[in-house]
């Protein structure tokens, strides 16, 4: 079967309008979280992109049509990735989009866009037409694992030679829709979230778009291969994480089987770490069952908040960067052990030799996702 690699990428977030700006901000320990007030839920903390800044960056890409905030974010991310591959015919490239709620803000009365714009199929069409893809776009909407799962979809379509390459984009907004929902779940933290910490009280929501090139052609510099991936359902509860971490455990096991490696070969874990009591506890149990309690681990949620459909892709890009630069990023917001099982939390951003990284994610509907990345020789 063909090998599949990750290529260039782009991150659009409150921390910056390029991957470089984002990586630099994370290296400096910056958080995108800020204080906001909503007429419905009152004071809350979230990571939002300023419309003014977005518009400024989007201007050179504007066309004779109005685009929503999310569309602008996603177009910016995809355009940058495609920039490096202009010689490749569009029909050789799969276009894969990951989102949970897309343009859901268009359902609100005060939103200037038509309610039809809230349809995810419409979002896919708008983006396809913008870039002139001739093949039908593939849109993945699978809760909080969407962004990671979209990369797995790309890998499969490249492995079975349907396509040679894929551009995968993930994106979601901070909207009244999701804020009020998570508020009704009493899941929003009053402060910047603290994944895996004793003091953790819940999540922050963030917005971002991230895009990555996935390809059968081995990149010339610092190639990173996708060596295994899987999803698994908890079959336990539609919103509560499994108490045994069953789905997460199984997804990692199946990814390991495909990669044909041992857990002991994993050098670093990029966990989901939403900072809710039950999610982080579930992850600690699953990682223990896998024998991964000593493997360095972090969560990016205190940098970006939970960016929903974008999060697993955004964080996968950081795993890619970690492997390429031999660097682990500190798990921002972590103070002291807050799960019943001990984990090896990364408390300092530092250089460290890395060969294999594991990225995981879990979401509503009991879904769990795992993917393994490996540094290849040039």
């Amino acid at each position: 079967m063909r090998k599949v690699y990750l290529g260039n990428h782009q991150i659009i977030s409150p921390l910056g309008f390029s991957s470089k700006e984002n990586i630099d901000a994370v290296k400096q320990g910056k958080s995108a979280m800020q204080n906001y007030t909503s007429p419905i839920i009152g004071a809350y903390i979230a990571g939002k992109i300023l419309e003014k800044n977005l518009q400024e960056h989007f201007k050179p890409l504007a066309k004779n049509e109005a685009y929503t905030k999310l569309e602008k974010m996603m177009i910016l991310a995809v355009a940058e990735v495609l920039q490096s591959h202009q010689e490749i015919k569009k029909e050789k490239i799969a276009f894969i989009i990951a989102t949970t709620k897309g343009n859901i803000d268009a359902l609100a009365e005060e939103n200037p866009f038509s309610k039809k714009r809230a349809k995810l199929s419409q979002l896919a069409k708008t983006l396809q037409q913008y870039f002139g893809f001739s093949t039908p776009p593939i849109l993945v909407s699978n809760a909080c694992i969407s962004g990671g799962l979209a990369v797995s979809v790309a890998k499969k379509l490249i492995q079975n030679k349907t396509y040679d390459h894929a551009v995968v984009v993930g994106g979601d907004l901070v909207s009244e829709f999701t804020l009020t929902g998570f508020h009704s779940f009493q899941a929003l933290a009053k402060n910047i979230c603290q994944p895996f910490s004793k003091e953790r009280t819940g999540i922050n929501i963030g917005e971002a778009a991230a895009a990555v090139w996935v390809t059968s052609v081995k990149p010339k510099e610092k190639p990173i291969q996708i060596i295994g991936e899987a999803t698994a359902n908890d079959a336990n509860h539609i919103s509560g994480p499994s108490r045994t971490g069953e789905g997460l455990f199984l997804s990692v096991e199946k990814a390991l089987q495909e990669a044909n490696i041992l857990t002991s070969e994993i050098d670093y874990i990029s966990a989901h770490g939403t900072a809710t009591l039950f999610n982080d506890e579930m992850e600690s149990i699953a990682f223990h069952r896998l024998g991964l309690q000593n493997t360095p681990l972090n969560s990016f949620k205190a940098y970006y908040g939970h960016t929903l459909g974008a999060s697993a892709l955004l964080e996968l890009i950081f795993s890619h960067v970690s492997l390429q630069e031999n660097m682990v990023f500190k798990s921002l917001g972590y103070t002291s052990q807050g799960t019943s099982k001990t984990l090896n939390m990364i408390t300092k951003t530092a250089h460290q030799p890395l060969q294999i990284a594991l990225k995981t994610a879990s979401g509503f509907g009991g879904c769990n996702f795992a993917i393994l990345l490996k540094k290849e020789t040039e």
Partner: protein
Amino acid sequence: MKKNGYITSSVKLKNHQIFKNDALLFKTEPHISTQDFLKEAYRFLEINYPKFHKMDVLCKLGIIASCVLKEDYPNDTALVFQNASGSEVSDVQHQKNIQDFPSPANFVYTLPNIVMGEISIKHQLHSENAFFIAEEFQPQFIHLYTESLLDQKKASAAMCGWLEANLDDYHVFLNYIEPRGEDIFSAAMLSEKFLR
């Protein structure tokens, strides 16, 4: 060597009728509400699963279809679904609730993949899940994706197809795929059965 998968069972829900392998299994008067149709189908099939009544339309359709399609599933049966409207019915309800009192029990259904969670709980499937959205059913893509899961041994069987519910209507077409059977699993076969 690549082995074929086979479609060994199909289910359709449309116009208040349920078809199993193209044979009419159940129907109600066409003018009753979708909720009433689903409740009658639930009783007729003797599903006996109180949680059913808490679900949104998309999940009720999924549970009924999964119970008609097959009685028992291997616990690594992959779920590969597609639809056009995501979780539109629950989305619109949550948007209405926002101004008043958002309901957590409704909000949880504002993700299309929740139906795969409900089906997994009902049949105890700890398997691969993927939910895709497209304006129209894409038999070629659904076939390719499902086949790659079977080829790579990530699942021993699969339930795949179209599971649509929107503000006006619904349309379900699910298939059970396994290693032995008569109808070879292909995009053309999916497409033909979908239109039949």
